[in-house]
């Protein structure tokens, strides 16, 4: 399709200036030709080829339309209209102001600066949250790269370009052609190289490449042009970030290198888990991977290369949504006052049971202290020392849990409103289940004032488990002595 002149009218839209001339499509600002005010600014994306070029050239566009029709939420632009593919194909969607991540990276390069690690983590977490929203809707993006990520002024990341995406509940129009890799060579996941579509963890690999790029200014696997070059990522471990930039913190290297694992099951199990680590650098579990500064030696690479030669990726047996549902983030809200040992014991038992059913689930143990509890003048009550005391208590509580297959982290929140703090935390971290004490001692008051558990249960964005102390210790003796 040749470029549309400003003022052209198409199916009730008036075309404005061309905002972007990409390799595959032009993007124009548009408004309603009738002058009807639009609820938000709009753009029209028009592919460069026309229907005359053959239907197969336009499949990507068709896939994008198919998938955008189903997507909701603020991780993607809202779809307004689509043109008839056999006449003039186009998509009209919400215009998201802001820079693409590519433009942002270019700015950094031009200025000769690299962003601080916390900024990399903040942007990475925003992208991971957007991805999680996509995966929850059964969609894998599969062509994630800096040019397809918009950084909106409100801090969220918005994902674009679903031409190679895959929806678990819709026919995959690209299924056959993509036995060989299609996607952007620099960011594509190894399993995509061998033709596997539909694993949400492929997107985590691509996000790992972007994090690497943001932190170091280089691409971990270069920009290969050949099939052999693409296959490198099946066995090659990229140069550790700390070799390229000595000031990269270990936690960031740990996170990025975990995303870049050749086998999908060695990466983060879901984008929510990745976002969690990016938002809590102090809670990242460090391994050799995060510390190394030398990279794998020749012999180690050779061994991995031999293994990769016979590597067969199995397509994930589960649809994206089901897969990430299996690896939830479980949050335990531990009270720190007015709580009996029996209650703490029961909560641990229930937590153990919940985690036992969910290998790969992540545990976040949280307590809320009053924001007036800390004092800047009293040393014993200083923020750090008070937090340390509480963290130790949380860790002690979790000690008997079997956490071999679970990542666990501990958090002290400060707030005057306990329920509000718990709810905000659960929402912000995509928590799938909250475990908290039922606080039966407040039941008499309940008719007058909603207790914390009731408030949390009413407003939580997820499942809430209220744990009652099943067998208070004081009764154990009675039972033992009973005939």
């Amino acid at each position, binding site marked *: 399709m040749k470029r549309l002149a400003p003022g052209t009218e198409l199916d009730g839209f008036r075309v404005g200036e061309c905002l972007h001339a990409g390799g595959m499509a032009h993007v124009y600002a548009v408004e309603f030709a009738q002058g009807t005010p639009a609820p938000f600014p709009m753009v029209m994306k028009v592919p460069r080829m026309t229907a005359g070029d053959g*239907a*197969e050239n336009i*499949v990507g566009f*068709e896939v994008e*339309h*198919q998938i955008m*029709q189903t997507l909701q939420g603020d991780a993607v632009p809202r779809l307004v209209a689509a043109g008839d*593919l*056999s006449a003039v194909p186009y998509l009209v969607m919400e215009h998201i102001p802001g820079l693409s991540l590519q433009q942002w990276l270019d700015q950094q390069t031009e200025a000769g600066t690299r962003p601080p690690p916390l900024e990399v983590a903040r942007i990475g977490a925003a992208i991971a949250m957007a991805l999680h929203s996509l995966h929850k809707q059964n969609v894998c993006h599969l062509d994630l790269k800096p040019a397809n990520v918009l950084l909106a002024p409100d801090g969220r990341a918005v994902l674009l370009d679903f031409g190679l995406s895959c929806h678990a*509940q*819709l*026919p*995959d*129009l*690209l*299924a*056959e*052609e*993509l036995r060989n890799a299609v996607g952007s060579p620099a960011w594509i996941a190894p399993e995509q190289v061998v033709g596997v579509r539909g694993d949400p963890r492929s997107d985590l690999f691509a996000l790992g490449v972007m994090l690497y790029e943001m932190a170091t200014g280089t691409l971990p696997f270069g920009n290969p042009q050949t099939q052999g070059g693409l296959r490198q990522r099946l066995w090659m471990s990229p140069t550790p970030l700390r070799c390229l930039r000595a000031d990269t913190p270990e936690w960031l290297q740990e996170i990025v290198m975990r995303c870049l694992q050749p086998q999908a099951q060695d990466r983060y199990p879901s984008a929510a888990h990745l976002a969690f680590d990016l938002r809590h650098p102090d809670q990242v579990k460090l391994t050799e991977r995060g510390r190394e500064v030398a990279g794998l030696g020749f012999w180690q690479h050779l061994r991995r290369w031999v293994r990769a030669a016979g590597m067969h990726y199995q397509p994930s047996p589960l649809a994206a949504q089901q897969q990430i549902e299996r690896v939830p983030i479980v949050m335990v809200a531990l009270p720190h006052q007015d709580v009996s040992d029996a209650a703490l014991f029961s909560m641990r038992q229930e937590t153990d049971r919940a985690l036992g059913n969910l290998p790969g689930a992540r545990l976040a143990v949280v307590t809320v202290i009053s924001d007036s509890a800390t004092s800047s003048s009293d040393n014993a009550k200083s923020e750090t020392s008070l937090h340390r005391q509480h963290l130790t208590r949380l860790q002690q509580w979790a000690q008997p849990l079997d956490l071999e297959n679970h990542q666990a982290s501990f958090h002290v929140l400060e707030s005057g409103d306990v329920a509000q703090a718990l709810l905000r935390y659960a929402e912000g971290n995509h928590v799938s289940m909250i475990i908290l004490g039922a606080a039966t001692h407040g039941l008499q008051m309940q008719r007058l004032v909603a207790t914390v558990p009731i408030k949390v249960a009413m407003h939580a964005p997820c499942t809430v488990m209220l744990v009652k102390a099943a067998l208070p210790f004081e009764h154990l003796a009675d039972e033992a002595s009973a005939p």
Partner: protein
Amino acid sequence: MRLALLSDIHANVQALDACMAHAQSQGASHWALLGDLVGYGANPCEVLTRVQALAHGGAIVLQGNHEAMAIAPPPSEQSLGARTAGWTHQQLSPDQRAWLQALPLLHRSGPLLLVHASADAPERWRYVDNERMAALSLNAALAHPEVRYVFGGHVHHQTLYYKGSGQQLMPFKPSPGVAIPVPTHRRWLATIGSVGQPRDGDPRAAYALMDVAACKLTFFRVPYNHTAAARAIRDAGLPEALAARLETGQ
């Protein structure tokens, strides 16, 4: 136009009522019944009464192999279908049998081609249960250049066949209740499942709804009182296996 597509009702009036009520709640404006209204189940007359009422209102009704069997029951009773065909034959009035006999095997209107089994030889009752059979049926239907969709029943499974980027048809297992965009620049073939005798391990009744203007096809599964349908089969003295399979959806 929202076209409700129901097939293989098999004299299961409980399942038919549940699917009709469900389709009405989904805004169905037109109806098509793709054959095998009777056979196996215990309520052929009740089913026919409802189907004839729909036909008076303009519904498309096709003949399936079980109609053919009920009109002229085969002499040997080798299959379960043949064993119930004689019983069904006796239940139906001569008028009803004549009405069934007059039903067409195939219906085409605009982009839609409806058939009980395969469009390439409707009278041979071939099972469209793989890509190759689907291609035969679809290619025969495409002799009419305006055809975009072939909908059939007979196999008691819900599958959508479509052309990926290669030349072969690809099978796709739909998720119930998910509207699938089926744009008209492609050709599609769907087997819409069985209302009255599902066989995929899920006892819920199966049907599909095609929104022709919006080019969206939705497959549905509808829970119904299958205990009552099974009881009716036992009460009528029909083979136990026919009652049991409704309870397990096998």
